[in-house]
């Protein structure tokens, strides 16, 4: 059977010259002949590949797998023959077993190394940096941060009157005595600086350099002095373990590297922020439990009863709009109910943290 000859354009891959040739396709392969009928090239069927995209009229450019020669035939009959005779027409040039398995391995490896990076390397790195950071540098960072937070969160009215930090002399004296008692048994790298911020927020936190901020709202929500002592002890636990600096390092590094990961699509930084939030939750819950343990140890060492704190957490659990199930992975603190239960499991001995008149003075520190 004589195969039909179709006009075609051919370049041999050694130079950029295009020749007008004729191509024929049959069961034994593709042959390219020049004007005088001389054979220019012959390709086995199994090695014929399409190169690039098809034109709008369906024309394909052909090559012999891995070769530089190019053949173009514009004819629908030829196209039809091509598709029926050539099994590997659209197979990519590289051997197939390289593609998906290798990509799967690479992706798996990447996920494994990313997980190692975020969950193991970053915390270890942060802890080492904290260990090596001189207390003076940490103290400066902490001073800057606490000034920033105070300015951000204090009541506007209070700020205008210069009372962003509550400083009534008798209340301040009580606070300092309490801090002194608790820190006798703590191994702080710098003296603790505790300030009460004039804001209705019910919260307290520790910043680098043993700087602790307690919010007026928390003092107002407490009904027993040991509640305040317990919260303070918890924050001192953070300060003693130098958590605040560690958190700052972990979270900023994490955020940056996530930015790198999603590098190209800036819009997906929403995704990046979600992942950051999840990481933040993971990192901090562990530290909160450590601070709880340390705080309780400080309370018992100072012979303060811990049970009132359990009541405090139970009240908080009822007040706070608890995050629905799935969202609790975002929470930076363990569940308040759990914390209350852990405290109740501890020995109940201990005394009141301060006298009634002292408690009155402390509660009115912001007047």
């Amino acid at each position, binding site marked *: 059977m004589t195969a039909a000859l179709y006009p075609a*354009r051919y*370049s*041999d*891959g*050694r*130079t*950029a*010259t*295009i020749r007008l040739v004729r191509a024929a396709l049959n069961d034994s392969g593709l042959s390219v002949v020049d004007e005088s009928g001389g054979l220019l090239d012959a390709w086995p069927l199994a090695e014929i590949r399409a*190169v*690039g*995209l*098809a*034109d*709008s009229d369906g024309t394909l*450019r052909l*090559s012999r797998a891995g*070769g*530089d*020669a*190019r053949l*173009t035939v514009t004819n629908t009959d030829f196209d039809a023959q091509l598709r029926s005779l050539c099994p590997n027409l659209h197979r*990519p040039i*590289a051997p197939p077993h390289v*593609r998906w398995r*290798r*990509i799967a391995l*690479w*992706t798996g490896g*990447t996920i494994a*190394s990313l997980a190692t*990076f975020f969950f193991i*390397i*970053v915390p270890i*790195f*942060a802890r080492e*940096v904290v260990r090596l*950071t001189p207390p003076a*540098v940490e103290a*400066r*960072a902490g*001073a*800057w*941060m606490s000034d920033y937070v105070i300015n951000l969160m204090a009541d506007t009215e209070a700020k205008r009157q210069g009372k962003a930090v509550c400083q009534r002399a008798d209340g301040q004296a009580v606070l300092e005595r309490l801090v002194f008692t608790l820190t006798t048994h703590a191994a702080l790298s710098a003296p603790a600086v505790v300030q009460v911020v004039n804001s209705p927020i019910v919260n307290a936190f520790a910043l680098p350099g043993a700087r602790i901020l307690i919010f007026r709202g928390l003092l107002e929500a407490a009904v027993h002095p040991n509640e305040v002592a317990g919260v303070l002890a918890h924050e001192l636990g953070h300060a003693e373990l130098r958590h605040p600096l560690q958190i700052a*390092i972990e979270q*900023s*590094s994490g*955020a*940056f*590297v996530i930015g*790198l*990961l*999603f*590098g*190209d*699509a*800036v*819009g*997906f930084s929403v*995704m990046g922020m979600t992942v950051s939030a999840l990481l933040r939750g993971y990192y901090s819950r562990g530290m909160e439990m450590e601070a709880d343990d340390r705080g309780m140890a400080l309370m018992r060492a100072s012979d303060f009863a811990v049970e009132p704190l359990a009541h405090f957490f139970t009240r908080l659990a009822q007040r706070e709009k608890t995050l629905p199930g799935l969202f609790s992975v975002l929470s930076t603190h363990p569940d308040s109910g759990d914390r209350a239960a852990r405290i109740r499991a501890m020995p109940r001995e201990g005394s009141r943290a301060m006298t009634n008149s002292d408690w009155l003075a402390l509660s009115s520190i912001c007047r």
Partner: protein
Amino acid sequence: MHATLEYRPSGSLAKLLLKNAALNLITLTIYRFWAKTRVRQYFWHAVRLDGEPLEYTGLGRELLIGFLIVLAVLAPATLVWSTAQTLLHADPVGLGIAQFVYFFVVYILIHAATFRARRYRLSRTRWRGIRAGQDGSTWRYVRLCLLWGLASMATLGLAYPWMRIAQQRYLMNNTRFGDRPFSFGAPARPLLGSWLIVLVPTLLFYASLAGFFWGFWSIAPDDTEASKKYFTEAFSRRGGFLAAAAVFLVTLGVSWLWYRLAEFRYFAAHTHLGGIGIVSRARSLPILGRVILCLAALAGFVLLTSILLTLGIWLALSAFRGGVDAVAILPIALLLAGLISFLLRRFWWTLIVTTGVVRHICETLEISGIEELSSIAHTATPEQKYGEGLADSFEVAG
């Protein structure tokens, strides 16, 4: 003998881009390497020289590997840098040094990325089976950019055209098609006129910005009354500072486009491939039209999506919760529509602007001496195995 490039796309770009957007969403953008490859295949194939289209032979996995390699280096480096930033926050001198080091490193990396990305793309470009290529050393190029960048800063931007010429010369003289190298040589002075149209308003803007902040800092920090007064005056005077800034940004965009095209035409006219010459008659107006069309499409899209979302949310909430105020939903719908549009910006931009730019450049390019093309021969140089890891991290144009 003259020839032009033809722009003849095949297949539906809109469908391709939508598929890319959807897959990017599902794979949290890991698909982007394959998406970019497909889009490049589309555009390369659409450009036809003397009847034969260009081929793009790059693979998605090459981009992926490039990305992973760079990530392995950049991740620890970023860790160290962000820690330094956290610790030094309170120390202005330390922080200043850290910032400076950061910008210096980023500057180097961006230019390295540009060089390597160009090399990768050229090595994956073929025409009639012959490969293009780029030689030269990354670090030579980076050093060139560094020195000229300093010169440009020192001259308040006046030296910029000279920097562009130096970059183009290095890049073009190291570019080849087959065994034939390109050649480029031109003085920079003729570009200066066009460049000043961009530079002078920019300098004026920065000067006024500096003046604004100078005035602000000379007010005592505690004097909130005076500060407020200063701001309100600045913003309300003569249409306000904000309005002026907006007008300026638009003008800057247009004049920048105009300069880049003038530069492109100038570069083309002085680039040769052996005896083959190029002349471009590209103008900025058609491209500007495309950009405006794209912005209009985006705006229309945001509007349409907001309306659809408002309706949808209202219907859903009404079914589950009883009557809901439609007006209250509007801000949320608008925000969601904005987010979706932002995620799809690449779709609109590629569909409207990139196609317009490529078509216009092709149709206004004249190539002379094209018969010489036939004599160009193949070279067998080893090509880099993967690519563009840096370019991906620094969002160098893909």
